[in-house]
């Protein structure tokens, strides 16, 4: 297997409802990534594109073919990936594998989504399509409900009283809002304190509005190449040294592990083993904080903190920039935003920029050398993890 590098990255601002099409959003991110790589569209051999809801958000299926043509990547093979909120993670991992295998030398990967433009009602319905339609949607399951149930289970299983857990969850949101304040690409730029979190509207008890990520529009793109090609293009290649992916079925079928997400533990172990690293080696982690409780659950299954203890870690600043591991210095899904088909590629964009030392100084993780990404699709149904390392 060959070494694979990320040589260029691009990303739109993540936002609320806006008027650009999914193809246009991806075009902006993709051309930024290609230009940064010192390449031309004709150099791209294949496109791997995450897009979960284009069929519903704008009546567009097979968006990848139009996205490739729009940027001048004429007639290249183009694949779309649908793995709910892990769609772009899947796309990037597949792009990695095709370059690692030697089949391609230069590929484009990323994702695009217009989830905010759908409005809350339709977005809530279509997000619920990522739960089992026959056996669990009939009960009226929604994504906030999945994580509300996991929050109650977390409280019961680890003996963290719900009022205490709510404070810890609020600390997660406050940190993410603070980081997002300094991210020019972030959807939300506002300072929110613990009191405001705990006084916000209850979406699905115990999940309140400020525990939730927003619905978002946006796109992100990456150029991946072989090591040999990367050395000719850039003095700052970021190597993708480990990847992992795993799946699971119904939420109820994950009963032996919940609130732990079994697929995440399998996926992240694959990534750590491939890279020859352990959780202690990670300087920066962009993880899937679709809800504040999801951050605690993710950090524990990734091995960054002990089970049942990550809330304390957040409250002590151990998950902050300058702490044990900097978690979501981008602002995360909470504040940077969550255009679901693009989120995984957006995480790689952030880690690459951090490793190069190119983000706003207020949220730069000093000396970061190794980063981890984490996307979760559905209620634990699709998990993707990637490890990135400085190549200079």
């Amino acid at each position: 297997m060959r070494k694979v590098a990320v040589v260029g990255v691009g990303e739109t601002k993540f936002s609320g409802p806006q008027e650009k099409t999914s193809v246009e959003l991806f075009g902006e991110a993709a051309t930024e990534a290609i230009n940064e790589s010192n390449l031309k569209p004709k150099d791209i051999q294949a496109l791997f594109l995450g897009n979960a809801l284009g069929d519903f958000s704008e009546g567009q299926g097979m968006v990848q073919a139009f996205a490739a043509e729009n940027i001048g990547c004429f007639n290249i093979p183009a694949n779309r990936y649908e793995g709910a909120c892990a769609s772009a993670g899947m796309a990037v991992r597949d792009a990695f594998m095709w370059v690692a295998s030697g089949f391609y030398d230069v590929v484009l990967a990323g994702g695009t989504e217009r989830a905010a433009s759908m409005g809350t009602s339709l977005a809530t319905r279509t997000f619920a399509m990522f739960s089992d339609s026959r056996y669990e949607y009939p009960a009226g399951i929604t994504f906030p409900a999945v994580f509300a149930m996991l929050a109650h289970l977390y409280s019961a299983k680890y003996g963290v009283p719900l009022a205490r857990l709510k404070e810890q969850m609020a600390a997660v949101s406050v940190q993410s809002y603070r980081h997002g304040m300094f991210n020019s690409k972030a959807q939300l730029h506002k300072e929110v304190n613990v009191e405001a979190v705990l006084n916000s509207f209850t979406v699905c008890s115990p999940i309140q509005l400020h525990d939730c990520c927003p619905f978002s529009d946006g796109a992100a793109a990456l150029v991946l190449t072989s090591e040999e090609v990367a050395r000719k293009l850039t003095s700052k290649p970021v190597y993708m040294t480990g990847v992992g992916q795993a799946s699971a079925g119904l939420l109820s079928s994950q009963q032996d592990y919940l609130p732990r997400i079994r697929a995440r533990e399998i996926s992240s172990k694959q990534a750590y083993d491939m890279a020859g690293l352990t959780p202690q080696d990670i300087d920066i982690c962009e993880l899937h904080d679709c809800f504040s409780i999801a951050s605690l659950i993710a950090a524990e299954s990734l091995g960054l903190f002990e089970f049942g203890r990550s809330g304390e870690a957040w409250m002590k600043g151990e998950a902050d920039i300058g702490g044990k591991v900097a978690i979501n210095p981008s602002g995360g899904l909470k504040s940077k935003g969550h255009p679901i088909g693009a989120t995984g590629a957006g995480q790689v964009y952030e880690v690459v920029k951090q490793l190069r030392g190119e983000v706003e100084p207020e949220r730069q993780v000093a000396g970061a050398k190794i980063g981890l990404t984490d996307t979760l699709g559905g209620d634990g149904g699709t998990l993707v993890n990637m490890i990135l390392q400085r190549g200079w």
Partner: protein
Amino acid sequence: MMEHKLTFKDYSEALKENKLLGLKCKECGAITVPPMMVCRQCASPDMEIIGLKGRGKIQTFATVNVAPEGREAEVPYIIVLVELDEGPWLMGNLTGIDPNEATMELIGKRVKMGHKVFPGDKYSAGESASPLFSLET
């Protein structure tokens, strides 16, 4: 061709009569519900249909206040994950208590199963029966 011993359709039709059907593995003894083609523990296809009691304990719950498109009239409602006496966890709704009064004290409470029918919407492939639990008295 290998066939499903218990299909969604047959499982759903039985639920409409308040009968909860599961699959018992002849190899390892594990019970699979809702139905799958193979045992959820050992992946053996050698399973037999059994009737479950439809009783168990609440493991976790959530009160939904923001509805998906088309289900606005249902909120607020409570969703529960119940550990059946036979072992498997099953998702359903909880009726008989005020959704706004649902607290952590629900966890561990015993419940018995009835059913409701989700008629489906323009995205669904028809109706589905679904477990509707109430507290044991």
